[in-house]
């Protein structure tokens, strides 16, 4: 089988911040009753993940390398290594047997770009393209937002200070990457976040 090729195929850019294509990433859209015990158990069993709170992303416990992000009152985005999606779907299907839910592999429908650099600049570059409030008091490590990246839909979160990961649809990956590259033009610092 051929190796999976991400939309940006390893692109990177250095400016105010560093942009990097994170390559193929496993992602599952999971819709269902997020408040139910069965759901919590199934997600935990499949990936060792907890149900995230509103607008938050939860890192995996223990050895698993996954994350679960809050997308809407009845939707999660589960993130994991590309190769683990098949097994995770099987486990979720078993765990949610008899429940009303939907689990779909969306790994190939997405692109994942990481923005890293000085924390203030990472926020600044993002603030040029999204209306979400990125002030350090209100957008912290572990916060997750579904918003707009200029004219495209996108979601992003802060895994640690000085880094924001951006998820967008595969078809607009080049647009979003070019957009962020323009926002990271070295002569365009705003000097806003301190």
């Amino acid at each position: 089988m051929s190796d999976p090729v991400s939309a940006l195929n390893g692109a990177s850019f250095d400016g105010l911040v560093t942009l990097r294509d994170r390559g193929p990433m496993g992602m599952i859209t999971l819709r269902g009753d997020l408040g139910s015990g069965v759901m919590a158990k199934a997600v935990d069993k499949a990936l060792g993940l907890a149900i995230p709170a509103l607008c938050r992303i939860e890192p995996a416990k223990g050895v698993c390398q996954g994350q679960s992000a809050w997308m809407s009152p009845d939707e999660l985005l589960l993130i994991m290594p590309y190769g683990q999606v098949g097994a995770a779907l099987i486990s979720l299907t078993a765990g949610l047997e008899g429940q009303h839910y939907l689990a779909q592999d969306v790994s190939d429908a997405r692109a994942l770009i990481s923005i890293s650099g000085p924390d203030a600049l990472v926020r600044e570059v993002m603030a040029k393209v999204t209306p979400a409030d990125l002030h350090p008091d209100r957008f912290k490590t572990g916060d997750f937002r579904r918003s707009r990246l200029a004219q495209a839909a996108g979601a992003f979160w802060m895994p640690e200070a000085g880094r924001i990961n951006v998820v967008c649809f595969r078809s607009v990956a080049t647009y979003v990457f070019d957009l962020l590259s323009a926002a990271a033009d070295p002569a365009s610092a705003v000097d806003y976040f301190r």
Partner: protein
Amino acid sequence: MSTRLATGGRLLNRGKQVTFRFNGKYLKGFEGDTLASALLANDQMLMGRSFKYHRPRGVVASGAEEPNALVGLGKGARFEPNQRATTTDLFDGLQAESQNHWPSLEYDIGAVNTYLSRFLPAGFYYKMFLYPRAFWKHVYEPFIRKSAGLGKAPTDADADSYEHFNATVDVLVIGGGVAGLQAALVAGRSGAQVIVMEQTAHWGGRAAVDGGTIDGQPVGAWIATVVSELETMRNVTLRLRCMGAGVYDHGYVLAYERLRDHAPEDDGPRHRLWRIRTSQIVTATGAIERPLSFAGNDIPGVMLAGALRDYAVNWGVSVGDRVVVATNNDDAYRTAITLKGVGLSVPVILDARATGGGALAEEARGLGIRVENGKAIAKVKGGKRVTGVAICAQAGEGAVLEDLACDAVAMSGGWSPVVHLWSHCGGKLIWDADQAMFRPDPNRAPTGADGQAMVIAAGAANGALDLAAVLADAHKAGEAAATATGRTVKAGEASKADDMAYAPIAPVWVMPQGASYALRSKSWLDFQNDVKVSDVQLAAQEGFTSVEHAKRYTTLGMATDQGKLSNINGLATLAKSLNTDIPSVGTTTFRPPYTPISMGAIAGEARGRIFQPLRRTPLHDWHAEHGAYWEPVGHWRRPYCYQRAGESIHDAVSREVKQTRASLGLLDASTLGKLVVKGPDAGRFLDMLYTNMMSNLPVGKCRYGLMCSENGFLMDDGVVARMSNDTWLCHTTTGGADRIHAHMEEWLQTEWWDWKVYVANVTEQFAQFAVVGPNARKVLEKLGGMDVSKETLPFMQWVEGTLGDLPARVFRISFSGELSYEIAVPASHGCAFWDRLMVEGAEFGATAYGTEALHIMRAEKGFIMIGDETDGTVIPQDLGLSWAISKKKDDYIGKRGQQRSHMTDPNRWQLVGLETVDGSTLPDGAYALADGTNANGQRNTQGRVTSTYHSPTLERGIAMGLVLNGPARMGEVIEFGKTDGTSVKARIVDQVFYDKSGEKQNV
């Protein structure tokens, strides 16, 4: 003569000389100059020609309100018209051109219009040029367009870059004068998140020019202290050269930051548009001085009193050795005192008030300046610059008492608070008769989402004109804003300035009060649009009693300055003409932006490569490398065809169709919408969305379905595949994916919220390819891994498995009439799979085909296309698709609509095939001609072409169209009109042109 003074100029760096060009002439200024101050320092009083009469005009103000000194700035890709010289910071190498004159600024032929002014009164467009009708378009309009106008549009693409920036704060303070700084200080100390912005390059506003003491220190020192305290606060952001442009609903504010206008060669964005969401807005936007309406008030050298003061104090510029001051308030005395202080002569102060001024008047007298109470200017003398004034009594009709030589006139009709930002989002005003001004009504502030006030006006913008009052008001505003955001303001004393005794202003709307028509017709209200007192009076006389009507009739306040100087004077004149009071006339509407902002700033980063999101399939680069001639489909780019060297587009399309029909064609169909619908109620849901049944589709099978709007019109189609007991996969059109997804969610969230159905849009998860042609099966068999034989995988079935070594879904569906498979593989493997298909298909001459070949092949088979056969007015029954409408179902979306009388009318045009008698291709959209004409004298019609192509397979033109009683008229020849007036004959035929029995797809 205007000139540079030997000393002074607090904003100048006299150590750094700067060279610039004006109308090709090399001139010198200093760092810190504006273009206006530098031009004045070079005795360039004449800066432009007026809009309508081409009158010589000089600068009248010193800031954003300037109506006259507009220039074309820069060259080529950096040229911009209508830039105000007063807000343009001087830089080395600046190039400016004056506007609206021919052949030159000094000798302008258009100035003859001023002698024609009798024929160009208010509303002249409407009056003079009504007859004959044709003259308007061919004679009058071209003439007016040529003679009236401001700058020229740029011809080159803008060389600069622009960007947006989003910020969310508690308190936004607009204006960095003492009021803004004081309000920001209070809010900042409370811990609130604050942005304070100032449109000029300097903090402190007018106060630094007007002087005074705050907390015992000179104003300048106080400003520096406050700014440095604000700079140390982490929760406060200060931005210079940043203008609050507009206030919108829910605390949304646009601000316009000019980053590189003063240094255009530097890297980085030129302008930045701030998109600010804030809880509270403090408008500390100051006030604008009003001109006085006397004859000749537009002659270069007549300026606002405050502006004359600014030029002397800020830039060390004298506008003239002898300056006459005309005023109706105390503030203008400051100009006289300042000018006297720098060694210039003030021959007289004409105070229109019979009782004269207060403490400042005493001070002026003390300096030996002649002060005349109750006196006015009858007229200003001079042409391209002031040579003198004729003095009269304000109370009279203008009989000249005395002629006085002078070089400049400083006028002040009082100050108008800048209420624009307060008013943008619905803040109301009250008329303050004592101060002769409209000011914000604190009881009717613009309100936010919670119904509470979101804007607080502070300082001069709130009608507090005296320094002490400004500080107290701004302190209160800062406190109120911080408190409204839930902060606690520590008790502290507001900064204090000394009180001063002022004599009240006397409203003076025309000078002298009984001015004759001759004088009034030379008294300008709107300098930029050439509107005079007599024009507004004429409008009133002709019945334009509403201020909004009078504005449009006279064009008062409609120029690029939006009447910053003229509005109040204009509506006061209107009020007087209507014999009513000013508040009952009211103001015109204040709309954003406060001053013009660049188109670049509005567009932000959205240009060039990132003008719009361009959606790319996994094969995008492959297409580009193989000669794709692109077609935009929604935001996608799809190959229309693949052009080979030396091939025309028509040739390429023909080759693709023929090769597909003959052997093997491959299509990138990844853009097709793919929606997964799952849940116990999914079948029931799909039965409502589609006109036919989907709940009874067996697992593993496919069915073509139609979706209608509530009104019954066909809006999308596609193949539905049953994945499992509770899961369906719905294919939509390329353009329909997001729309139909939203349509489904809307019904689920608003109407059938209790149905257990989830929908996911997985369009981009898969790369999907059509493998089409007699050799399609052979290629898949070569790839191996899945049985795709006729027996195992018959037409309209699908199967999931491994093809080659990739996970794949194979759908046996056909949109071309050939043996055809659509194969979906994970998008990340799309390119690799396509390459495999090309390699394995090479022996069959595998040919990539584009959307045009796709369209032709479907048309040859008589399949409809959403957007061609449908246009939002077509129902499935029009298209012979009744077979796809379930009779068994109680309901589906659109059913009721389709039962309405007009939908069941037997005379609705019906789909048929069309073959031209001569074999030519019918023009797209052509109408079928019927006998006679309709009530409008137009030819009657009986049908129209919906799709038309040259068929490479049949080597003739084929078309589909909607025709009156079409299916009953098979074989009949009708005529279609062409745009050249001729017509072409076509025979009504069955719309399936190719392989009517369907043998080819079913092998």
